[in-house]
């Protein structure tokens, strides 16, 4: 392999690929970055086996030549040193040349590095995209979907399947669900796709999604999503993102979501959020119990920590149907849920003091946040 490339493009691409490389890997080859040179592209791949990031540098960007191909080929370079070297090289052109099988020479103006590379054959094979099974959607939409659901994944390894976000596609509707068995968040969006394309029980690890969220840009440009047997692929313009899926069957969450409600109120999202934030100030030792009591045209929000003190607040209700109610819940869950509801108004559905509380965005009723209540002891 031999090429001459502009340092700036190389530095950026190496930094992206390096994000997936873990310093604590048990598979030696994964401590490296795979560099592959083809006629038209220079491809860098980093992986920690859970997630992999593949960055493609095209030969020409906006009619500017980015690199000159000398000899095609591929090599794995130790990520730790390769990223440092590229970062510290002076600006201008960088030459990368593989000699004697695995000795890599990196030259730039006056400096020259010799780095011991590893055999590219040893690198894990990543799945290919099958063109007919592609789901296309705007980048910002997918980024938002992740933001609005993935916070609810479980962090406990005892139920590993719940550490991921469940993803399903049916009849052109994409559904994402995450739950840690105390709260649940779900959003369904219509996507333009081939009607025949469908999948279910695809569970993407929350950790991978957090990384993906960082990579996706808030823009209208389309991205491509492909699901294979073991992995999910997300393709943006330059970056191909792979994540292994979680093994196992995701629980049926449809049954948990109440179909009918005893009472429904709508109120201003921001004022409710701020009220709960204030009420949780007095929360002690992570017990963020907040009580919600309905009254005419208002709801009372109160919290009581015997050792610290108590707080009460009223929030104006825009619209109310059904009976009065009283419910207590964990303020942290409510805050997490309200923070991802972007609409001005939020609808709260109440189905009983021991049944889940449902929060919906008024702009998009398919964005749903569900919180399990906490038992209220009347005599306290």
């Amino acid at each position, binding site marked *: 392999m031999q090429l001459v490339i502009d340092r700036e493009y190389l530095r950026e691409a190496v930094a992206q690929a390096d994000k997936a490389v873990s310093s604590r890997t048990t*598979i030696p080859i994964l401590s490296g970055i795979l560099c592959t040179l083809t006629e038209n592209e220079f491809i860098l791949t980093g992986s920690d086996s859970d997630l992999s990031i593949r960055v493609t540098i095209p030969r020409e960007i906006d009619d500017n030549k980015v690199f000159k191909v000398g000899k095609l080929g591929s090599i794995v370079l130790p990520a730790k040193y390769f990223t440092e070297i590229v970062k510290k090289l002076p600006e201008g052109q960088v030459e990368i040349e593989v000699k004697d099988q695995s000795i890599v020479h990196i030259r730039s103006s006056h400096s020259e590095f010799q780095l011991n590379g590893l055999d590219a054959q040893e*690198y*894990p094979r990543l799945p290919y995209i099958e063109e007919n099974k592609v789901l296309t959607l705007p980048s910002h939409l997918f980024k938002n979907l992740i933001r609005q659901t993935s916070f609810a994944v479980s962090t406990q390894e005892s139920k*590993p399947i719940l*550490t991921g976000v469940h993803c399903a596609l049916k009849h052109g509707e994409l559904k994402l669900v995450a739950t840690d068995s105390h709260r649940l968040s779900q959003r369904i969006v219509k996507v333009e796709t081939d009607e025949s394309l469908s999948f279910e029980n695809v569970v993407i690890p929350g950790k991978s999604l957090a990384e993906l969220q960082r990579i996706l840009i808030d823009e209208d440009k389309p991205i491509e999503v492909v699901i294979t047997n073991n992995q999910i692929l997300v393709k943006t313009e330059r970056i191909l993102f792979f994540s*292994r*899926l*979680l*093994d196992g069957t995701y629980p049926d969450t449809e049954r948990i979501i109440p179909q009918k409600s005893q009472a429904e109120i709508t109120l201003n999202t921001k004022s409710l959020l701020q009220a709960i934030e204030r009420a949780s100030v007095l929360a002690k030792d992570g017990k963020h119990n907040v009580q919600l009591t309905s009254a005419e045209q208002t709801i009372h929000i109160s919290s009581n920590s015997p050792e610290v003190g108590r707080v009460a607040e009223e929030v104006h209700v825009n619209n109310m149907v059904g009976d009065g109610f009283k419910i207590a819940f964990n303020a942290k869950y409510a805050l997490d849920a309200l923070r991802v509801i972007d609409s001005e108004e939020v609808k709260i559905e109440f189905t009983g003091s021991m049944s889940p509380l449902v929060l919906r965005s008024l702009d998009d009723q398919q964005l749903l946040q569900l919180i399990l209540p906490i038992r209220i002891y009347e005599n306290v």
Partner: protein
Amino acid sequence: MQTTMMNPRIKQWVINMTRNKRIAHAYLFVGKKGAGKKQAALFFAQALFCAEKNDGQPCGKCSHCLRISHFNHPDVHWVQPEGQSIKIEQVRHLQKEFAYRSMETEQKVYVIEAVEMMTSQAANSLLKFLEEPHPGTVALLLTDNHRELLPTIVSRCQQVPFPPPDQRNLSRQLAKAYDASLAHLAAQVTSIWEEASALCQAEWFAELKELVIQLTEEVAQPSNQPLFLILDRWLLIAPEKDQTDVGLDLLLFWYKDVLYTKLQISEALVFHEERDRLHKQALAWTEERLTQGMTAVLNAKRKLQAHVHPQLVLEQLVLKLQRRA
């Protein structure tokens, strides 16, 4: 360089099993050091993953086989003791691996070397996965001492006994390159070619051998002075714990030889060049005291493993051998 040959019986067993696709979820490879357990585990993984199998035998050349033998296959996980034990974090890492689907294929293999070195937390955590096996996941646990394992782990695995390695062959091979009597001794201490040849080359090993014989002579004498000189010398030439452990092995072989001499079993002697001295000592020991002596050496070995200082271990052992403690 010679590596131990894989046992043909084990090899055939692996081939038959993968060919018939009747694979259990967990195997416990039990056998002495150098019995080829690790090699068999590699072979097993290759037989599962190889894309170009020839009559059940992995090709050893395809990308799966090559990466398995270089420990680079993403669906074959190796766990080795970190320092003195296999820690809970390492098993947690495995647990996480189980939660994910495999990377390239539909199956996963995990190999844990020296399972007996798991901490009890790690062992209990592993147990959970042996109890609820995932489809397509095979566990290979390697051990040279399955009695130290939790019985609950042993009972959840199919045990595969490995025949002990051929010591005679090893000592014959070693004798070609090194001093014959040292080669014979080294092959007794370890059955791994690399370790044995390292012993043959080491000066301390040869010196320790002489020192052990001197020690057995002096133990019978009433004066303690020369004994302590010997112990000082011992710790000087063999400062490492593992070296003292080898020394204790030699001592054990010596007393076994004394016992054999007493019982007139002469074929199996380790120190067969020292017949005269063995005879002389055999007269001074009773059979009962010899077994007591050997038990004392074994206890000393155990104490050494439990991080007792080598000097204290040796001094106590000497007193025991003299029946003063």
